[in-house]
């Protein structure tokens, strides 16, 4: 099993204890609160992903062949999901990010937050994560 899928399964396992929406969202809110806000230096027009409902900031760097993501959002629930995405995707090799399939959002019942119509910036964030990985992958192999 890939590292990405191992991490996704761990999140699914973690969420399986919640049987009502309130516990699930409370946990998400806690995750959002715990995620260290990225410094204002990194929060700029380049890292901003505009959703019409909430804003997401995403930055990436390469360390020892792995992509490290940092991200933030102005809405806490979005930030909670951002925290999960970072936890699952950060520190992987570019090709694992490019080729991996994200299924944990669906499985923990938060799919509506990642629907293209939701315009909270999360769909664009996942796309941007893959774009970063692709850029690093190209750089490594050029």
């Amino acid at each position, binding site marked *: 099993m890939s590292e990405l899928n191992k991490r996704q399964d761990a999140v699914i396992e973690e969420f399986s204890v919640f049987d009502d*929406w*309130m516990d699930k*969202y*409370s946990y998400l*809110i806690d995750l959002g609160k715990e995620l260290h806000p990225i410094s204002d230096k990194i929060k700029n027009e380049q890292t901003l992903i505009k959703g*019409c*409902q*909430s*804003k997401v900031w995403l930055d990436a760097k390469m360390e020892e062949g792995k992509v490290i993501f940092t991200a933030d959002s*102005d*809405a*806490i*629930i*979005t930030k909670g999901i951002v925290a999960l995405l970072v936890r699952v995707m950060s520190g992987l090799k570019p090709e694992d990010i490019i080729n991996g399939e994200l299924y944990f959002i669906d499985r923990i019942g938060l799919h509506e*937050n990642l629907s293209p119509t939701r*315009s*909270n910036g999360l769909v664009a964030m996942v796309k941007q994560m893959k774009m970063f990985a692709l850029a690093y992958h190209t750089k490594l192999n050029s």
Partner: protein
Amino acid sequence: MALIIDKIREDFPILKETIYNKPLVYLDNAATTQKPQVVLDKLIEVYTKYNANIHRGVHYLSNKATTETENARLTVQKFINAQHSHEVIFARGATEGINLVAHSFGEKFIHAGDEIIVSEMEHHSNLVPWQMVAEKRGARLVKWAFNQAGELELNELEKLISDKTRIIAVNQVSNSLGTINPVKEITALAHRHQVAVLIDGAQAVQHLKVDVQELDCDFYVFSGHKIYGPTGIGVVYGKEGWLNQMPPYQGGGEMIESVSFEKTTYNQLPFKFEAGTPNYADSIALATAIDYLTALGLDDIATYEKELLDYAEAKLLTIPGLEIVGTAKKKTSVVSFNIKGLHAYDVGTLLDKMGIAVRTGTHCTEPVMIHYGISGTVRASFAFYNTRDEIDRLHQGLLKVIELFA
């Protein structure tokens, strides 16, 4: 006569739906309204009894569909008290209506160096088309700013009007603040300076009685889906004098008188502005919605909705940290608010889980949010089928949200 809300709610089948196993509380009426059964029945009737392309057919069904469509136009004419039925043009919605006026009026009457005044509280639909026309024609857009309460001031407008001003675009009711603007006085002032006025009535016609002759406005637009009618249909009212001078908006069937390969002469009003097969089914059902609304009575609707607004504002203001955005003296049943420390998106997402539908974000009025220096609001907008119990549920829901974030 007071409205009997329990009985009215029976007319709207969707209100019986449950969301996440909870009874639906629908408080997003400024975005779109729900449809009474009579409107749904009318759509089925059109498609099952007399569906046929209108105006040019010689057969029975076509004649029947044509008659019903033109009767719908008469219903709209009466509803807004237009002088002539050919001053009523069917469009896809208020947005298309404004684009039609901006384009066709602009082509004829707006030239390089001219000015267009647009209020700061317009929906993007009544801003972007004017930006496009201004760019195309080399004209300048002039912002009519609102005050902190969310009100437009006439004396400010007077300062902005110049001999270059050609048109003023303003809403009768703000979708994000609920402000009712003094459109009759705006029009009178504009006309003293020979300036035309377009009124965006998308948030007004479902709440207040509108008489375009009394307002004396040059153009008035509204959408069908916000007035308990179908989506994809809207109305442009324009004074005959303007419409006759303006070039068509789109070319195609219906809008022509005769066509040779080299040249086309255009049809008369209103058909000149209705290119292609019209949306006759929705026009006919829109008339049914108007009849339904008129039978309830707009005065009674306004009275009841004002009660809901007062109740909601008083109740919501008991919540610590809650601040209402848009505190105009005259408002329709719209409450935009923020709770200190909470993001509107988070509030809306959690209310949804409780079966409560509100809108969050900028409400397509980014300049309004920029004015207040906020990223958005939570907006609860009420219709005559809403109840105090539902407002209580909103209130309880918000307390729960605050608890979850504590």
